[in-house]
């Protein structure tokens, strides 16, 4: 809830600090709980998620199956846990991959943007390349990939990572360019440090905060995109479990067992909400720290 509480004065600042820490605490707590669920779900689930039990199809919640069972008789709670593992894996991997490539490209672009003409050309190439990738929404690049490597987790990770490259390239380039014109960077150049040393020692640390904020938001978007892709049947394939796929299955049996369509959606919403809250909380925290300095 950035800029939700404007105003100055001690009371307003205190008020602001409370809302910020509420954002951050809530976001952090949500994500931590889900992460623990995901980690446990990756190694252990109450019931097997691959065993079909035709005697226990579409059961209502009970003490035996806390969230009921699906149309194959699999325990919904177990599926939710395995789905959490999948969501965090795909989300984490795709954002890490995309941000790594994007940040490296952005840093290279920034360090060459005020150099010789040939270097400036490199900067233009990287930024125009970002524009081109930006023309492909996640769903579209996923469908392009499906023709080549088929549906599956790899397609989802690659499509979401690709989408993240220009996001991080632009952000890191714009922040770095502001740092490059600072006096301490000029001083570092004067004592003969090369662009790589300056980038590692001065530029990257200054860009770290905004990059972490962006990564948090992008993680939420990645989980949303992963769920959408697997709902449409383009992402993770059975027998692997995903929240999106669970919702697609639940929709088929909506008239018989509406309860199955609830929990996976709540999980996706909570994960994205957690990532967004953490992102806004962190961003407010950083700007507050900057003000104090």
């Amino acid at each position: 809830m950035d800029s939700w509480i404007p105003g100055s004065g001690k009371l307003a600042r205190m008020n602001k600090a409370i809302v910020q820490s509420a954002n951050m605490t809530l976001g952090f707590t949500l994500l931590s709980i889900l992460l623990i669920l995901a980690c446990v779900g990756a190694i252990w689930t109450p019931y097997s998620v691959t065993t079909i039990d035709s005697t226990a199809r579409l059961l209502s919640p009970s003490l035996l199956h806390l969230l009921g069972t699906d149309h194959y008789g699999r325990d919904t709670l177990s599926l939710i846990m395995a789905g959490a593992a999948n969501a965090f894996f795909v989300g984490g991997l795709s954002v890490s991959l995309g941000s790594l490539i994007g940040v490296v490209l952005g840093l290279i672009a920034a360090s060459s943007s005020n150099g010789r003409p040939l270097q400036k050309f490199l900067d233009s190439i990287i930024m125009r390349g970002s524009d081109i990738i930006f023309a492909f929404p996640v769903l579209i690049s996923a469908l392009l990939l499906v023709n080549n490597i088929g549906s599956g987790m790899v397609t989802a990770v690659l499509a979401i990572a690709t989408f993240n490259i220009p996001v991080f390239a632009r952000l890191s380039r714009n922040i770095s360019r502001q740092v490059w014109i600072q006096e301490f960077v000029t001083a570092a150049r004067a004592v003969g440090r090369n662009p790589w040393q300056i980038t590692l020692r001065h530029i990257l640390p200054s860009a770290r905060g905004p990059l972490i904020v962006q990564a948090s938001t992008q993680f939420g978007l990645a989980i949303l995109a992963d769920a959408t892709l697997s709902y449409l049947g383009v992402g993770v394939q059975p027998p692997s479990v995903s929240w999106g796929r669970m919702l697609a299955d639940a929709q088929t049996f909506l008239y018989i067992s509406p309860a199955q369509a609830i929990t996976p959606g709540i999980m996706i919403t909570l994960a994205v909400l957690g990532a967004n809250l953490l992102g806004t909380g962190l961003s407010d925290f950083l700007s507050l720290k900057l003000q104090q300095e």
Partner: protein
Amino acid sequence: MLRFLVQRCLFALLTLFFAAFIIFYTIEILPGDPAQIMLGVNASPESLAALRTQLGLDRSVIMRFTAWIIDLAQLDFGISLIHGDRIANILQQRLTVTIPLALIALVFSTLTAFLFGSLSALYRRRMPDYLIAILSQVGIALPNFWLGILLILGFSVGLRWLPSGGFPGWEAGIDAGIRSLILPAIAIALPQAATLLRIVRTALIDSMAQDFYRTAQAKGLSPALALIKHGFRNALVPILTILGLQLAYLLAGVIVIENVFVLPGLGRLLLQATGQRDLIMIREIIFLAVVATILINLLIDIAYGFVDPRLRKVSSNE
């Protein structure tokens, strides 16, 4: 300004050209033999050879790409092998579902965003504002396809007011057609409105801080009336630019939601074509989607240039 416009348009064309090449390359070159993919592994050598000739696969890559671009420039989208019809005809027919759906969603999300955004601005830092803030956070995190399923659950399975999916066709009456687009449009619109209402709120609060707003209130207008008469007009410029953002969301939203509600539009066609390996169809629809994305980005760019002349820097990349 003219120089800025021309430069942006040229950049967009260049982006489009490279994007077209990426589409062409990933669909026709990378997977291997397009004829084999379309006909499957059990195809006879004769039919494979016939299809290869039909697709012009005996020509060089550059020739094929150039031929495609020339066709596109003439708005010739080729023939779908699965449907056995001109792709232009099929697209035209599908757009009669997709465009009304997108328009209704656009109206819904704009109205919702304005209503809640201005309520939030009017009751700033009071209960309604906080409540809307929480709703907006949840709305942003809500997957639109799940919202679609929930709407089906509530209004089709439960209340039986509206159809759970499918489209009767406009021949069945405008009334029946619109009825089957209402739930899909809401599913697209609400998560979008959750993002947009914050921009509306910020824009309104900015213009409420201006002198003319205080003057209007001093003249005896109520806060709400002053907002409607003066606040909106001055907040319109930033809000126009978010309409551009809306269009970008709509594109993805339409593809997903058409599949949730089994609506015979462009998004459903794209996913069906993927399942049927109708490569020509996939290539053309993806090209159109990318054209739309580039066009939207261009419009946002130009709109920002109009709003803030400082953003019109010609040579830089920002």
